[in-house]
C-alpha cells in the first residue's frame, strides 16, 4: 500500500488529538462517511466513559452512595470486565479506582454495576482510550475500509495491509524520533512523571510503550509495566504483547 493513497483526518476528542488514516476507497465519498462514523462512535463512547461527563456511566457510578447500583452500557461493561480481569491477574496493580477503593465496585451477571464503598471512584483513563480506538477500527471496517489506522494521542491501532511508522514523542523535552513500524496491531505509550496520576515504579520520568494485538491491551498494559517496572511481566505474554521502557 503506498502512502500517497492515504486520507487523514483529525479531531479533538478524548482530551487529545484523535487521528484517523485510511487507504483510499473505491467510491470517492465512502471514506468521508466512514471517517464521520468513526468519529461519531468515538464521541458516543467518550460520553459513556468520561468521568468528566456528568451523564456518563462512570460519573453516575461515582455519584452513587454505597449500596447503590446502575445499569451501564454494554461497551462500558466490556471495559470494566477487562479491567477486572487485569486487576485480578496483576495482583491488584491495575486499579481503575486509582487507589480510592479497589474492592469498591462489582459487576453482576446483568449489566448492573454496584457500589460497595462510599469512597470508590472509577477512572477509565488508563484503559478506555485504547478500547475506543478498537471500536473506531471496528466501525471503519464495518464501512468497508480495508486498511488504515486510528491514533488517539499515542494509543494507536493499525489494521489491514499497511505498515505504519511510529515516532516517539519526548514528553519532557519535546521532539520526536523514529521507533518502529507497526502492522496489524496496536501500540501505546504512556509517560510517567512527577505530574502524572500513576507513578512509574523506577522513580523519575519515563516512557513505557507496549505493542499488542488490541489497543485496549496495549493501553492498559503500559500501566501494568509502569507499576511493576517489569518489561517481561507475565501478563504481556498472555496477551501476545511486548513492552519497552525508554
Amino acid at each position, binding site marked *: 500500500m503506498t502512502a500517497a493513497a492515504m486520507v487523514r483526518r483529525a479531531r479533538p476528542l478524548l482530551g487529545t488529538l484523535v487521528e484517523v488514516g485510511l487507504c483510499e476507497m473505491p467510491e470517492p465519498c465512502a471514506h468521508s462517511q466512514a471517517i464521520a462514523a468513526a468519529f461519531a462512535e468515538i464521541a458516543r463512547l467518550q460520553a459513556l466513559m468520561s468521568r468528566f461527563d456528568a451523564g456518563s456511566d462512570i460519573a453516575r457510578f461515582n455519584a452513587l452512595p454505597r449500596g447503590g447500583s446502575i445499569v451501564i452500557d454494554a461497551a462500558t461493561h466490556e471495559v470494566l470486565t477487562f479491567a477486572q480481569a487485569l486487576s485480578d491477574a496483576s495482583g491488584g496493580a491495575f486499579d481503575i479506582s486509582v487507589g480510592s477503593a479497589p474492592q469498591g465496585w462489582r459487576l453482576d451477571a446483568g449489566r448492573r454495576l454496584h457500589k460497595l464503598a462510599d469512597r470508590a471512584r472509577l477512572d477509565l483513563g488508563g484503559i478506555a482510550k485504547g478500547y475506543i480506538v478498537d471500536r473506531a477500527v471496528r466501525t471503519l471496517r464495518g464501512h468497508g475500509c480495508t486498511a488504515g489506522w486510528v491514533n488517539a494521542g499515542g494509543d494507536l491501532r493499525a489494521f489491514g495491509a499497511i505498515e505504519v511508522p511510529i515516532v516517539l514523542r519526548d514528553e519532557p523535552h519535546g521532539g520526536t524520533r523514529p521507533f518502529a513500524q*507497526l502492522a496489524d496491531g496496536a501500540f501505546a505509550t504512556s509517560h510517567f512523571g512527577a505530574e502524572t496520576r500513576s507513578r512509574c515504579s523506577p522513580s523519575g520520568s519515563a516512557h513505557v510503550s507496549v505493542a499488542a494485538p488490541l489497543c485496549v491491551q496495549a493501553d492498559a498494559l503500559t500501566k501494568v509495566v509502569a507499576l511493576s517496572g517489569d518489561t517481561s511481566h507475565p501478563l504481556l505474554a498472555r496477551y501476545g504483547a511486548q513492552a519497552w521502557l525508554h
Partner: protein
Amino acid sequence: MRITLASALAAVSAAAPASAFAVDYLSAEQAAKLMFPDADAFEARDVTLDAATLQQLDAQGIKARSAHWSARVAKHAGATLGFVVTDAVIGKVELIDYAVGIALDGSVKQIEILSYRESHGFEVRLPAWRKQFVGKGAASAIKVGEDIANISGATLSCTHVTDGVRRIVAVVAAARRSGALA
C-alpha cells in the same frame, strides 16, 4: 501484530529528520465544504469587535485575543447555513491549526484539525519557526505524501484547542449580536 523496531530499520533512521514533525489534514476551504456540504457559496467576512463587545466577552471570561476575526459564512441559495472560523493555537511543543463550524443556533457543528506541527521544543514560540508553514498545505492537503508517521508519546493535551473553540463560539455569538456578522 507485527512490529519492527527502528534500530533494525537503518534506512528509516538515517533518513529521518532531526525531530520536526508536521501533518496537513485539510485546507480551510476543504474543511468548510466538509462541514457544510449543502453550501453553494462561502462568503469571506472580516469581523471587527468593538470595545463594548470585547468588554462583554471579557466579563464572560473569554479573552478574544484580537478584535479582528475572519469568518466564512456558508450560504445556500442566498440563505445563511452557518459559519466557519479558523484559528491556530500554540501548545508546549506544537502548533495546531483548526476550524470550527458553527450552526445557526450558535452551537458547534464540527471541529476539524487542519494541520499539526510538532517542534523540537522551544522553537514553537519563535515566529521564524511558525512562518515556515504559512501558506503550506492548501492544495494537496487531502492527500499525504510518504510521511505517514504516527506520534506516540504521552497523551497530547487538547486543552488549547478546546479553549480556542470556546473563544470562537463566544466571538461568533457576540459578532452576530452586534450585527458585525449577519
